[in-house]
Every structure is written in structure tokens, then in C-alpha cells.
């Protein structure tokens, strides 16, 4: 299947190339980046019996691709209703598209990010070992635009042997996210205030982080006007700036931050947060240290 191309006919609000990112370069100021919903991205790759090759991360649906050459794809993540030449196709299964067919994604009724993976991966030159688009620094491929012709890489040696991988699609209802105490939990008067009531996902959320609106948690009296020297932060860090909006870092988080990290979200729930839609409610549950 070499020589195949995916032509971008529409992108929706944002379509980016992602793989597992470029971890291990934080000392150079480079964010790890990579697919925001790791689980969905990795399932997409497994369905095509391949390693972490570049896929398309579609935000809020709307992607339209035309094939040049026969390709095999998979759809995972938020269920943006999909059709090929007008015929409905499903998520969680390998799909073969013939030459000259059009894949169209609508708008998801729940969840935010869908992954369109292609067997062979999107074969553009990697930057610092990854084909991920880092929206904070601009490293990596540019966001997809109409007219892009995405080359498909050579098929891997393994052959797909999974017909269908049923998964629970992201929910539109209130989300529950588990977290543990962070390095600067003592900057809050009462860490339990994070869990006291649900937070609202802000429309200012993006791949850098999910922003949550709600009552500002009170600072410990000794820290009220204090400043923190910038320090390394991880994906899932829950930052509590003085203004009240919490930020939970996602894939394109900066390497260091100057606001106290009061909690860290569990790995498994980062995929849940990557699917959070503005207006959705999120409850934070603090686990045992």
C-alpha cells in the first residue's frame, strides 16, 4: 500500500497528527506532546496491528478525507458519526477503503477527540523523533489544512486479527476523575475543597490543559501572597493559580510551571479528561496518598 495518499477535504475545528509524542526531552524545554487520549490512540494502532505510527487526532469532528489508493483505517475515541461514500461505518474495527472513496466525520454527540488511524501511519518527517503536533511550542507538523495530501507509510508486517474492539464511548454526563495529593498540596488551606463540589469544563480548555471553573479553593494563610519558583510539572498536574480556575495539564503542557500543583490526576483518568467537552461537569476524587 505504499504510494497511497489521504487528501484532506475538510478539517473540522482542529485536526492534528499525533503519535506517542517526544518524551525524555524536558531538560531542553520540549513538552512530551502526543495523543491526548492515549487509550483511544493506542487502540486505533492495535486494530491495525501496528506500533505507534502517526494518526489524525480530530477535535469536535468534521474531518473529511479522500483516499488515493486503497487504505485500511480504524476509528476510535469520541464517536463522531462516520460514513464512507454515504454508508455508515463503525468505530473500533479495521475498515478497508478503496481508491477514491471519501470518509466523512460528523460532530460527536459526546466526547471531544476522535482518532483516525491508517495502516502504515501518516508518513511525514518526524521532528525530534515524533510526528506529534505540539500546540504549545509549534514543534512537529502544522495542523492539517484543506488540500493537505498525507502520504501513507508502508504497511507493517503483522496482520490485523481483531474484527471489533467494543469500548465504552466517552460520556456526555458528569465525569469523575481520580487524583492524589500533589507536591504543593500544602498551599491550600484544605485540599478536600477540590472534591467538595463539581467543576465546570471551560471553553478555554485545549491540549495544553483542561481549565475548570468553580469556587477558588482557599490558600493556606501562610501562602496567600507567596510566589513559587517555576518547577517541573507532569501531565495530569492540577495547578491552582490564585485566580480560581484550576488547570489540569494534558499532552502539550509546559515543562515547568510557577503555580502550585496541589494534586495529580491518575493516568487512566487523563484519557477521560482528554474527552471532556466545555460545559461538562467534572468531579475530582482524592485518593489515598
Amino acid at each position, binding site marked *: 500500500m505504499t504510494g497511497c495518499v489521504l487528501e484532506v477535504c475538510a478539517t473540522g475545528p482542529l485536526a492534528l497528527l499525533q503519535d506517542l509524542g517526544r518524551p525524555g526531552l524536558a531538560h531542553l524545554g520540549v513538552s512530551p506532546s502526543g495523543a491526548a487520549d492515549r487509550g483511544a490512540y493506542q487502540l486505533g494502532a492495535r486494530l491495525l496491528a501496528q506500533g505507534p505510527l502517526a494518526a489524525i487526532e480530530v477535535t469536535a469532528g468534521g474531518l473529511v478525507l479522500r483516499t488515493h489508493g486503497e487504505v485500511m483505517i480504524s476509528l476510535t475515541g469520541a464517536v463522531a458519526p462516520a460514513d464512507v461514500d454515504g454508508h455508515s461505518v463503525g468505530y473500533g474495527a479495521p475498515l478497508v477503503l478503496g481508491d477514491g472513496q471519501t470518509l466523512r466525520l460528523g460532530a460527536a454527540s459526546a466526547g471531544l477527540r476522535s482518532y483516525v488511524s491508517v495502516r502504515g501511519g501518516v508518513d511525514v518527517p518526524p521532528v525530534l523523533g515524533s510526528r506529534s503536533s505540539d500546540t504549545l511550542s509549534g514543534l512537529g507538523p502544522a495542523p492539517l489544512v484543506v488540500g493537505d495530501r498525507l502520504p501513507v507509510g508502508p504497511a507493517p508486517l503483522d496482520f490485523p486479527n481483531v474484527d471489533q474492539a467494543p469500548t465504552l464511548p466517552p460520556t456526555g454526563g458528569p465525569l469523575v476523575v481520580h487524583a492524589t495529593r500533589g507536591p504543593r498540596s500544602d498551599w491550600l488551606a484544605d485540599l478536600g475543597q477540590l472534591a467538595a463540589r463539581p467543576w465546570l469544563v471551560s471553553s478555554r480548555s485545549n491540549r495544553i490543559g483542561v481549565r475548570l471553573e468553580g469556587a477558588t479553593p482557599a490558600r493556606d494563610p501562610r501562602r496567600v501572597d507567596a510566589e513559587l519558583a517555576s518547577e517541573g510539572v507532569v501531565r495530569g498536574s492540577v495547578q491552582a493559580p490564585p485566580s480560581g480556575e484550576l488547570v489540569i495539564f494534558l499532552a502539550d503542557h*509546559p515543562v515547568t510551571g510557577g503555580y502550585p500543583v496541589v494534586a495529580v490526576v491518575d*493516568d487512566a483518568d487523563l484519557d477521560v479528561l482528554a474527552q471532556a467537552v466545555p460545559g461538562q461537569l467534572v468531579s475530582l476524587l482524592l485518593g489515598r496518598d
Partner: protein
Amino acid sequence: MIIASQLLPCGAHALLIELGDTRAVLAAAAAIRDRMAARDGAFTDVVDVVPAATTVLVTIAGPDLDRLRSGLLRLESAPGPDGDAAGAEVVVEVHYDGPDLDEVARRTGLEVAEVIAAHTRTPWRAAFGGFAPGFAYLVGGDDRLSGVPRRGSPRSRVPSGSVALAGGYSAVYPRTSPGGWQLIGRTDVSVWSLDRDPPALLAPGTMVRFFDADGTSS
């Protein structure tokens, strides 16, 4: 070198080490990298070592934080030069015409020519990065420049290549961005370039000498 109370929780794959000052940070980062080079079993899973002004963040790929914790608690100072392993030495030619040069002179009580002389007299060392790809916090410069504060209000646009001072550090901006440091000059040297391997010119450990491009040699 590190005691248990200095290890702060940071999720299932990381520990934040609170060290209090940059000298202790550089010593700890050097000791960790020394253990990694020696293939110490406690550190084989490390993904990132992120030093900052007063802390070092260590992240691992797997779930065994206890193994990392034991390794950190038994760290000893690494042999070798103070702080980080000696790296390459880079010369950065600077046109000392920055918009904050007069302000820095005023703050330090020096003449502008003396500020330039102080900045170029001693080598600086890249201690750590973080703010953006290729941005390095340089330490070790002339003491007279150590009290220069950040600007009261940041600029929304600091041109790429700007040479700056703040809080005891110096830096070269790798690309145009907002910034709150005092700008004393500019360089044509590109400190971040994807065409170069490695792309960061001032990786941690690199020695930097600033050179007055327009001055008479001292």
C-alpha cells in the same frame, strides 16, 4: 544528600525533589545522571530529569516509584566538576544595545560599560531549561549582576536572540515570545535550531562566554 522529607509526591510516575537552592539542584542532577550512566538499577526507568531553580523533577516510565525513591535516598555527590558535568563551551557574540541596559546600570550602580564588562568577564553555565525549547537559565556570572530583578511588567514581545538578565540568571531567548527579563543586548546566534543536532545550543552543562561584538577587546 537527599532525605525523605525532600521527596514530594507527584503522581504515580514522578517525584519532585525540593532542594532549596540552585547549587544543590545542580549537585543532585549531576548525581542522578552519574547513577544513570552507571546503569544503577534504581534509575533505569527514568524518562526525564528536570532541574529548576530549587527543585529537580524525576519521572519514570513504569509504576515502581519505590525503587526510584530508594535510589534517590542513597544518592551521593557525583565526582567531577562542581554541579553539572563540564560540557561544550560556546561563545555568544552580543550587540549590547538592549532597551533595559540603562535600567540594569541604574539597578547595579555600574556604568553601562561596566555592566557589559561584568557580563562578558566570566563564563556562565547553562544550569537548566524549561520555559521554551532551547531556553536555558545561565548561572555563575559576575556577582554584581546578581541583584537585577525581573521587569515590573513583562513585554508582550521579546525578539528572538535577545540577551537578558533577571534574578541572578542570564539567558538568550530562542524565539520571539512574551518575557519579563531585562534585555541588555541581542545576538545573531541561534540557540535553538532543528537543523542542528542537538537542536539546543545551550543544553544543561554547556559553558557560555559572552563577547562584546561592538567593543574593543579587553
